[in-house]
């Protein structure tokens, strides 16, 4: 029978670790990660086929003057992998966190947990940490895998490896933070729509920059710069895209950076700091909104 002695006091972080572990368990047991792995394998198979064909056909077609076709095809294909990984990582991160607060509260899942001693902020940050961990792992594995595949199929390595991978992982973490923030005020469906519209808005900012560069419009380039930094996941992505071909010069470098994946743009010196500040700010806002929310 229950005694009336003083209640146990959980160790600091023990509750948060329990929630993070529970979130990861849920991803495994509900086969979220299995589905993601299977669909990513399909993506990988298609990517392998396309890459093989692209290298073979460009080699057999003969060269174009002033163009390093090997670098052009390799850089473009890794750029494609980066775009695809960004999209898939966004889908994964968003679906892991869309209903983190309001959705779970409406289902009655959240209340038994937040009345426990660990408190709301720890619950929220643990959910974020678990989703971010899954997404970081996913981005690293998929993008590095794609780079290795291109190396095997076409003998091409991007000019930088660590920077694009890390910046893409950071970009997805920013999106996860935005999804967590949205979940504090929006229903699951509304939050999903909002996250993907914000994601699309970032991509559009990148495309505006590309167009601005192509037509030499400083205004469009300014709009793109501020748009992509207002949503720093886009600036991180563009910086990673740029790093793939950072040492590729001449016409080849120009063409590959103007490629179809949202505009490569070198990262400014303060981008990492800004992205970190932005993410912390978004999470602080999420914690503050959650603290005030009636459940």
């Amino acid at each position, binding site marked *: *029978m*229950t*005694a*009336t*002695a003083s*209640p*146990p*006091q*959980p*160790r600091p972080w*023990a*509750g948060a*670790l*329990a*929630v993070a572990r*529970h979130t990861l368990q*849920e991803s495994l*047991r*509900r086969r979220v990660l299995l589905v993601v792995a299977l669909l990513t394998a399909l993506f990988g198979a298609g990517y392998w086929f396309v890459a093989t064909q692209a290298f073979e056909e460009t080699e057999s077609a003969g060269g174009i003057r002033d163009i390093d076709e090997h670098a052009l095809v390799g850089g473009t294909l890794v750029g494609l992998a980066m775009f695809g990984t960004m999209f898939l990582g966004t889908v994964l991160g968003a679906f892991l966190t869309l209903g983190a607060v309001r959705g779970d509260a409406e*289902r*009655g*899942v959240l*209340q*038994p*947990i*937040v*009345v*426990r*001693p*660990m*408190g709301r902020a720890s619950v929220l940050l643990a959910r974020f940490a678990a989703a971010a961990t899954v997404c970081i792992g996913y981005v690293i594995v998929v993008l590095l895998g794609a780079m290795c595949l291109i190396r095997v199929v076409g003998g091409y390595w991007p000019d930088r490896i660590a920077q694009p991978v890390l910046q893409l992982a950071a970009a997805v973490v920013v999106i996860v933070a935005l999804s967590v923030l949205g979940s504090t005020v929006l229903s699951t469906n509304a939050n999903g729509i909002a996250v993907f519209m914000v994601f699309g808005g970032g991509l559009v900012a990148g495309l505006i920059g590309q167009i601005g560069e192509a037509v030499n419009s400083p205004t469009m380039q300014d709009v793109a710069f501020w748009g992509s930094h207002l949503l720093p996941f886009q600036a991180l992505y563009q910086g990673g895209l740029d790093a793939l071909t950072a040492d590729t010069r001449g016409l080849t470098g120009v063409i590959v950076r103007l490629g179809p994946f949202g505009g490569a743009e070198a990262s400014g010196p303060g981008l990492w700091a800004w992205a970190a500040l932005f993410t912390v700010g978004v999470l602080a806002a999420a914690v503050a909104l959650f603290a*005030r929310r*009636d*459940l």
Partner: protein
Amino acid sequence: MGDAGTDGAAALAVRGLVKRYGSATALRGVDLEVGPGELVGLLGPNGAGKSTLTKAACGLVRPSGGAVRVFGHAAGSREARAAIGYLAELFRFPGWCSADEVLALHQRLTGSAGGAEERARLLEDVGLADAAPTRVEHMSKGMQQRLGLAQALVGAPRLLLLDEPTSALDPVGRRLVRALLARLRDAGVAVLLNSHLLTEVELVCDRVVIVNRGAVIRAGRVDELSQARGVEVDTEAGTETFPDVERDGVPALVARLVAEGRSVYGVRVQAPALEDVYVAAVEGATS
């Protein structure tokens, strides 16, 4: 309201609690107290504010005015949360979890070191001893409700806040929960029981608080609320009612009737059921 002691000693002390949702006022200055080892029933029609009151005690909703304290700590504070066990009216555990895993999660959240022994004991207490490996998605609603009760008891809470804990239970399940609540009370646990089932409240609660339109309208011990209202006597002429006679006046009444040469075959003291008290208090309000 109540007699459970000062705010510092009371398991739950609610003072002038007001809660507004936009322009709607759910609670209008509620006072309530639950002492250690006391089992208090919270009654009222749908929308009366019972669940809001329970949630305010858990820290799930923020008061617009007044104060709620749990063992002297502000409701929602870490210290208050460490002292409570809560079963929500509408709750759901992840379907992929087994009963044992649900309790293990809550052990980690509370810091309980009870381990497998505590989990097994709690499941046995709620009649789910054989259901430890059963996944929640394979449980009936009644089993899930009993698991919810076991979850609320993880970590040996000193104050138990139960929002409709028996609504999905069959009669056997209700009896089991009543017995469990009585044992908890005997062990010194304070319980606030929010229920629509008046007979449950009548059978197990020390005190009853009736809430309507966000305010406490009646409160007291069940026997106080159900005060005697007359006496029925079976005589050779049939059943006669003496509305002005109370329980203490029965011997004198019987003596007088016998002295008058009447034959008395039975005497019944009339006491209104809690249901009558409740219906009269809320003036038939529902929903």
